């Protein structure tokens, strides 16, 4: 017998495809992965602790910087938690609609980025990712129009949204949304049936539903394992119960299924957006009397179906203007737990693909 040794390599924190500063210690037998240890914390900024020194409204910008791809969704989850804690409400109708519009646009942005960079990890040299980023730009322009900022909007605040959108926003958004299905079809045609893509993604990173649930995985990864769990349906928040949309699931349990779920969810987001943009009423966008938030002592947990999965904020108030505890349930961190399980036994090339198919943002993992 040939005597062989395993090889340990560090992938990251500086590596072309670790999606931010993330390090994996891979133990390889040839090219096959025997063990994988994720190391993170490179982007730790102490957001949860710092938030205890700030008022509830001052904390909104921190939420932008968790999952920095999806600022709007983070704002929404935090606003819901504060509203629950302080008993703010009812939220004006127009604000609710704007929240849904922003959250769904964010979902499209996130899935664009996820699919684009997954393809980059697969080695499709920048063409798909640029198509995706082009679409993302259109949506970021909308965010800029509404909030003045493209990635860190701080737009959705406790009580509503910070200010009404300019009059040209709704027509512009309608135009972008009308173009969405064609964009998804384009991606679909370019990628879904591609022989190499299928060979690379099918049966890679298989996560059986029992394991997914045991790890607490949520979002497209869970639905890609065939579990029809979507908080927008399971526990509707905001006004999601008014819209007609499907929860996309795929039975594949592999990276390909996750890819298909993301494509499908973009289509569903377009459906929701069409309905919301058609129905949005006029009116105020901020609840009455939300001046200085000083919730009574107590605690609250609010969660949303963020693009990457369940995003929750757990807040404890001691009656002061600052939260006593500000805890984030980070989607990316919890989805990351399943990484080792999915990677062991695959080749090095698959590890980056599996990592891409989970779709992480290190800002949220490390906080």
């Amino acid at each position, binding site marked *: 017998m040939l005597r062989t040794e395993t090889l340990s390599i560090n992938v990251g924190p500086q590596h072309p495809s670790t999606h931010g500063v993330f390090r994996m210690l891979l133990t390889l037998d040839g090219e096959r992965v025997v063990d994988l240890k994720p190391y993170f914390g490179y982007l730790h900024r102490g957001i949860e602790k710092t938030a205890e020194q700030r008022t509830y409204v001052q904390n909104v910008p921190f939420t932008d910087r968790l999952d920095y791809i999806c600022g709007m969704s983070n704002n929404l989850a935090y606003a819901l938690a504060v509203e629950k804690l302080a008993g703010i409400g009812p939220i004006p109708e127009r604000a609710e609609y704007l929240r849904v519009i922003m959250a769904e646009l964010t979902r499209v942005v996130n899935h664009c980025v996820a699919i684009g960079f997954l393809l980059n990890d*697969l*080695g499709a040299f920048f*063409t798909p990712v640029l198509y995706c980023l082009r679409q993302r730009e259109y949506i970021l322009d909308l965010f800029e129009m509404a909030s003045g900022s493209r990635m860190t909007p701080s737009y959705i605040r406790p009580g509503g949204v910070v200010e009404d959108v300019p009059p040209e926003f709704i027509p512009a958004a309608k135009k972008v949304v009308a173009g969405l299905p064609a964009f998804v079809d384009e991606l679909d045609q370019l990628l879904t049936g591609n022989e190499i893509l299928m*060979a690379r993604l099918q049966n890679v990173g298989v996560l059986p*539903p*029992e394991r997914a649930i045991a790890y607490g995985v949520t979002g497209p990864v869970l639905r890609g394992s*065939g579990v029809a*769990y979507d908080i927008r*349906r399971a526990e509707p928040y905001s006004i999601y119960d008014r819209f007609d949309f499907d929860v996309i699931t795929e039975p594949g349990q592999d990276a390909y299924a996750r890819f298909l779920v993301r494509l499908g969810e973009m289509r569903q987001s377009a459906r929701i957006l069409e309905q919301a943009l058609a129905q949005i009423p006029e009116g105020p966008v901020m609840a009455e009397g939300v001046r200085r938030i000083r919730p009574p002592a107590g605690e609250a947990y609010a969660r949303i179906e963020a693009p990457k999965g369940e995003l929750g904020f757990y807040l404890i108030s001691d009656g002061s203007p600052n939260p006593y505890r500000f805890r984030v349930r980070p989607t990316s961190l919890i989805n990351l737990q399943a990484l080792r399980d999915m990677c062991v036994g695959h080749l090095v090339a698959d590890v980056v693909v599996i990592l891409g198919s989970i779709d992480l943002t290190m800002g949220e993992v490390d906080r």
Partner: protein
Amino acid sequence: MPSLNNLFGFLQDWISGKLSGFLPPWGVTLAMMVITIVALLLFLVVTVMYLTYLERKVLARIADRLGPNRAGPLGIAQPVADVLKLIVKEVIVPARADVPVYFLAPVVMVAPALLPYAVLPFGPRMVPADISVAVLFVPAVTSITTLALLMAGWGSGNKFSLLGGLRAVAQKVSYSIPLLLAFLAVVLVSGSLSLVRIVEAQASYPFLLAQPLGFIIALICCVAEVNRSPFDIPEAESELVAGYHTEYSGVGFAMFFLAEYIGMFTVSAMLAILYLGGWHGPLLPPYIWFLIKVYLILCVMFWLRGTFPRVRVDQLMNLSWKVLLPLSMVNVAVVALVDKLGLRLGFLPGLVAGLVVMAVAAAVLRTRRRARAAAAARPAWQVREA
């Protein structure tokens, strides 16, 4: 008045005529050799520089961008800037490098990459040495670069480089076999191993029409031979950072880059010579036709790179050993059979036979993939909706 068709032959005669006035015959031969070599090297270096520019422009258009457009009008000075940058860049030797091997690898990479140009015919009378075994000579010398890749991978003292080097060796060895088998079919029909004779044999129709299957096999193998996407796994950026040349900077990196693009040009030229009829074509001078055909194949390579994801190591090996190798054997058999029957119908029997084999192979592969996908499909497992 020299005809444009034979411009280079005329130049050659003119220069040697001038030289023979004051040099002995052996001196003229030597001088002509040096002039040819220098001319070829200049041509290659400039070609490579502008291939990178062309590639970036083409890829940019595919990806809905503009590409380089800052240096000079339309960015045409970009390659010059790139070369200058690479030359003045500091060469950093990794602490754990095996220094002699590390420095030798780029040289071993470039030198064999240049050798094929001794035998590649750019036109009639435009071949430095028309040797009788050129079809074997080109793959033989280009496969020396495999050694350089392994040296670079080992000498860098970096694990990513080592993996890249090992992948490169496995890939080059695997794809040389179907490639040569595909070339064998061409040799079989033309009855010669000389590239000039092979081109001359295609005066009536290019072998692409008679051997479509052989061309596709050769094209896939050539893309794999030069480590281009979708077979760029030795330097897979997203997995191995940059593979075997991760630790090279400055001139060392430039050498690998140069060799890679010269390699691309070589395989495209081989495909143009063996399958597209080399310099044959109406109206335009032969060397222009040859370059048009070469650039056509190069653009196909750019196009592949702009569109396709990368295959995985094991899939790469499967493709070579389980699909391309049997198919290339079938191709040799079919071509031999068609040639033997000699139906006097030109390329038609070959074309039909090739297309039939391709259709059968595609059908078989598709059913196998379906079977695999069906075996892998798991029952959906639904959680009761809350």
